């Protein structure tokens, strides 16, 4: 049936395609796989960073951390002459409250899209973060000021006004699905799918893009540049997957989404980890994630740990659509 004539899918159709719904994700997967006591490891970005550093995984270099309101006036002093940096709440989720400063003229700052951020605006934003406006539970928060990652030039053609990020979902330590989120003009340069960023699926073995989705509808070209989304092979893919598996092992979370940015010089850098990764990745793939999770479940433990995981990644990537549907 033509997709434009369909307004809904029957539950049975979705089930046959192995599509994971939010309820099933919460009840059957997150509650079963992610121990409650390890949540701070992903919800608190400072802790995630520490874990990454302890395991030799690249993270953006932290310039300084602000923990109290009294430190806010010292911000300019602390930031020194840096013209590019990122301000993010340690307890924020889904990119909330993050300000990326890409340029500076005295005490005036500019976002990646060129928007002016005056010092007073920025100072207000800092105090808002500390008050907990962006933190998950609304409790007091901390501010991380860190290096701005300049995206790899290869991705310039499909990222507008911002930095594309790569999300890998790992189940029991094995990468199950991956996608790249591309900022658009509509999303204001942010890789936020709610605001109209584009997501493209990634082939797990090669890191090559395919598919594409914008606001839950399938697309094949970037809406701003009209550049085809599919067929771009990401640099540093093996390193990225290695880092993802290492971090997933360290976090001890059974179902986790890890967000990366690929730095032009140093390769994959972890931005954050998420214990409740969203479901749009399936739309980007045009494929449900459940069969992959079941496949990983069906493997003996020895086959899906350590270096043996590369075989699993290859076999997930090379399995045909028919295999997943059966």
């Amino acid at each position, binding site marked *: 049936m033509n997709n434009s004539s369909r307004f809904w899918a029957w*539950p049975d159709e979705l089930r046959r395609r192995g*599509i994971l719904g*939010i309820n099933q994700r919460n009840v059957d997967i997150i509650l079963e796989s992610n121990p409650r006591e390890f949540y701070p490891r992903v919800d608190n970005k400072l802790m995630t960073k520490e874990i990454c550093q302890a395991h030799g995984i690249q993270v953006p270099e932290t310039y300084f951390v602000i923990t109290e309101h009294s430190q806010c006036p010292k911000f300019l002093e602390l930031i020194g002459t840096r013209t590019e940096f990122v301000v993010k709440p340690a307890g924020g989720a889904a990119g909330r409250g993050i300000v990326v400063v890409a340029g500076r003229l005295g005490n005036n700052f500019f976002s990646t899209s060129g928007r002016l951020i005056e010092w007073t605006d920025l100072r207000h934003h800092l105090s808002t973060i500390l008050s907990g406006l962006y933190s998950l539970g609304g409790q007091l928060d901390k501010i991380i000021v860190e290096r701005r990652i300049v995206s790899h030039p290869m991705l310039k053609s499909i990222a507008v006004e911002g930095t594309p990020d790569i999300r890998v979902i790992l189940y029991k330590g094995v990468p199950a699905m991956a996608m790249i989120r591309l900022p658009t003009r509509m999303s204001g340069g942010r890789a936020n799918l709610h605001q109209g960023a584009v997501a493209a699926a990634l082939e797990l073995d090669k890191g090559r893009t395919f598919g594409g989705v914008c606001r839950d509808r399938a697309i094949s070209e970037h809406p701003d540049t009209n550049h085809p989304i599919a067929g771009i092979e990401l640099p540093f893919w093996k390193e990225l997957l290695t880092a993802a598996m290492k971090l997933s092992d360290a976090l001890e979370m059974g179902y986790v989404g890890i967000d990366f940015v690929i730095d032009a010089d140093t390769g994959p850098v972890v931005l954050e980890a998420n214990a409740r990764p969203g479901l749009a990745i399936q739309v980007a793939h045009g494929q449900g994630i459940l069969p992959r999770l079941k496949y990983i479940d069906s493997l003996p433990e020895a086959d899906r740990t350590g270096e043996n995981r590369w075989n699993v990644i290859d076999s997930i990537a090379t399995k045909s659509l028919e295999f997943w549907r059966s």
Partner: protein
Amino acid sequence: MSARALSQLVALGFILLGIMAFSLRSCTRNEVREGLQDSLWRLTYDVQFEAEAAESEVKLWLPSTSSATEVEIQEFTHLNLQGSEQITPINKNREYVFTSKLGGKYQVMAEFEIPLRPRNTWDEQSQSVSLTSAARSRFIKGSQILDTASSNVRGVLQTLPRGELTEGEYVQNLFDYCSQELKSGTAKEGLDGVVDALVFHRATPLGRARTMVTLCRAEQIPARLVSGFEMRQADQAIPHVWVEVFHGHQWVPFDPTYGYARHMPYNFIPVRRDDEKLVRATGVKNLVHNYTVMRLAPPDSILQSEVRRPSQIFDLTRLPVDMHEIMSLMLLLPLGALITSFFRNIIGLRTLGTFAPALLAMSFIYSELATGLVILVAVLMAGYFGRILLDRLHLLMVPRSSIVLTMIILLILFGISLIDYAYPELGVRAVLLPLVILTTLIERFFVTTEEDGTGFAMQLVIGTAVVSACCYFMLSWHDIGEILLIYPELHFFTIAAFIWIGRYSGYRLVELWRFRDMVK
């Protein structure tokens, strides 16, 4: 045991618990209610006579037991008499026959305790009987007293032509004649008799009943007298006489004296059918009989209902009446939460804050619609303009929210004052509301607008409005609130429903739309 199986088990446990608690309470409540309606009466026969010789006989008719009236205790006190009970085949009368072995004075006391239960009223109509042709001819036969052939009877019947009337309509005409055309009279004037009643147009209660039976029988409609007692306190109770007409498959009661028709009040206890006498004696002189009816005290459970018992803790209706409204609103809140979780987890509608819609709905209930709308407008205005103005001041979050809160409060109060000035008849009143929650709602809306775009924020606002509206209708359902106040254990079912929703891992309704492109 897996979490899934355990959840099912716990949910079923709650359902069972709910059923048990509910039936226990409804049984207790029924008992209490019935206990208040019920009354217990004692009917006493005091019969004295002098036997002229051995083997003389006195026959008493006893109150009849049926499904509606039950004689609970029956006691006879007498000396040197032999008694035996029998039930007559056609009229089902209970007769008690005493025979004396020797001559002399005797006294018989018969006591009956009769509980009256208004809900199953004296309802002979439900009892279908078949009348054999022999019995039928007996109930249309005239006699010396019920002289169907007399010219007066014929004369009256001529003034009441049968015509095309159905039997029911015709019986009603006869009943109207006997109960309305005849004025009251006394037995001394001989007005117990049918002929005199028809001649003088006056009759005693017995005369009326006899007249009606005679008129019916003359028209070939089976009818009989019924003699019994009205249960009301009396030292010297006089048996009351009414009529039963066989109609369809039932004996239908008519009381031409008091006007009851087709249904006798529950406190009329029939004793003897087809005759008015309740005592008959042969070979006896100086027969004296007296009947008394007395109301007995109710059981202790009713008289001591206000005694403190720990079980009263479970009865919320016992609390002061002015608390009832708030308590039922509180009890309705879980249903609001049920609606919220249904919308979130089954339908997939997103809202600003989890329980904010239910609380918003509650504030509307609390404040009635007019005040509620003022509050909504005030909150939106103060929130919107306050935010715009305060944004430039770069204040910290808590003080900024507090300013918005203060503005909301002022706007609400002056808004109410304005409405009261313009439309005093509306009767708006200021009530304490979860204003802080509303303020947080505004704050959340702005964060969502900034972070996820206006479109997404509007989705949340619409979702919040829809869920709030549903919660409003649920919470404003007073009957449900009252039922929950009486039976709070119904919330065991709510908990079971929560468990089921909590374990629901199927697709949300919006996901059927969201993933529609995935099926090609």
